[in-house]
């Protein structure tokens, strides 16, 4: 059974974060995956805030920049996990 928070599953969040990064924010190729390192893929200060705003629009939760640690920005998967935790605690 897949758990759900505020209408989102972890899998759906990973897909959403990944699609925002791949389609809207980063200039990446086919080798970019949900496990790719985001900083190495070009995520910078402007893009990360644009990403957080897009997530806020989709999921209704704002993740403060100070919560975005290197570990959370390791990949789309780890970032989605951070967002999911925020949703759960909201």
């Amino acid at each position, binding site marked *: 059974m897949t758990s759900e928070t505020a209408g989102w599953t972890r899998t759906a969040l990973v897909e959403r974060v990944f699609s925002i990064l791949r389609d809207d924010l*980063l200039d990446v190729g086919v080798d970019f995956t949900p496990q790719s390192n985001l900083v190495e893929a070009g995520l910078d200060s402007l893009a990360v805030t644009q990403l957080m705003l897009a997530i806020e629009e989709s999921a209704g939760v704002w993740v403060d920049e100070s*919560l975005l640690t290197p570990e959370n920005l390791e990949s789309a998967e780890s970032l989605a996990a951070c967002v999911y935790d925020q949703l759960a605690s909201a």
Partner: protein
Amino acid sequence: MTSSRAPDAIPLTGADCFLRAFDAEGRRYNGSSHLAQLVLRLGPGLDPETLGARIVEAAAANPVLSSPIGRRFGVGAPEYRTRQAPRCAPPRLQVHRADAPAWVAPGAAPVPPVFFERLNDRFDPRRGDLLRLDLVVYPDAAADLAFTWLHMLFDGSGSERFVAWLDAYHRGEAGADAPSASDAEIRAKQPPIPLGSRDRGQQAMRWQGFVRGMAQHPPRSLAGGRRRVPQDLRYRVVTLDPARTRVVTERASALAGFLTPMLFYLAASIRAHAAVFQARNQQPGSYVVPLPVNLRAKGGVGATFRTHVSLVWFQVVPEQVGDLEELIEELKSQRRRVIKEGLIEAGTAAMDFARYAPSRVYAAMARRTLRGELCSFFFAYTDQFLPGLDHFFGAEIRGGFPAPSVPASPGSGAIVCLRGDRLNFTHVYQRSALHDDELDCFRDRFIGDLLGSS
């Protein structure tokens, strides 16, 4: 060796023209150009003749480096006339022999005075005079090298890419025309949306309205309003040791975010300015600071030449600067709002208008909008300086930093970068704008906030 792919002319970007307006102001009132500088502090090993030869080859392969800037038939948007570059002199390398002791420790050796002189120079863009190099060689063969360029030739990341490429070219690991032939550079050459575009105009008007709103609390700089005296720019560089750098970067990540530490440094800069105002027993209407943001493609190959940035503008009133953490939260909130409301794109649209307006008219409009002063000071955070580059032309890079010039107003600026495990803080100022004790006051508050000890 001229690249067969080089076009006859390359248009300046809107951001280039925005900076060109500052250049026109600098020339008109201060007798110097609006320049930027990148300094490398090197160990022994660099051969000046080899560097000079590579620069000549680089200019031949990349005509933008020595292209006259002008408007076609005197009207329209300005452009680099690359076809005329072969008739212009290549960037000049001047070698200076110094008797002074060489580099001692990071941040301890004084900056060679010739670097300040160069930053106060007047370049001639109509004759392709866009970049100059100064090499100061010490008795032990260590050297300081300054690249000084007219602001629109590179932005911060472009200048670092150029230095890295020059070294790679020297080592035979990059082609002669690599920087201008990248896909990203070609993409960046696409002209902006025409001036007549309605959407573009509306965006620019929206940005104008946003800036006009700031005039309700007019900013004030430490230099005061426009001063018609020759500028005499200097800068101070403070380099923190690895232990203190670690404390600072950890605080920056914790308070402002791992990818957005610039808000921590910006907040500390604002408070350092406030400390000097306080010492003068003055209170400005507000602090207005533009923060450059890089608009280059994220993750793709970056362009080398020309400016690809926009600005995020912040404004805080004196009541908001009393507590560092609250100030950071306010800056976070403003930055979020600016991005959310599309004001970065609106600002880019407004800068595009600078391509068509005479520089003097554009600068006058900007100054009038904020009632006299353009901003309180300039600020930039450039992250790691030349990441991954340990040597330049065979010489160990022992340190380095960027230093931009600042016109009046505001007459001062702060730029923060990291070189390996050391943080560099460069405070650029017009000498008559701050007394020595005020410079100390500024530095002490700034460093105190960084370390959490003030």
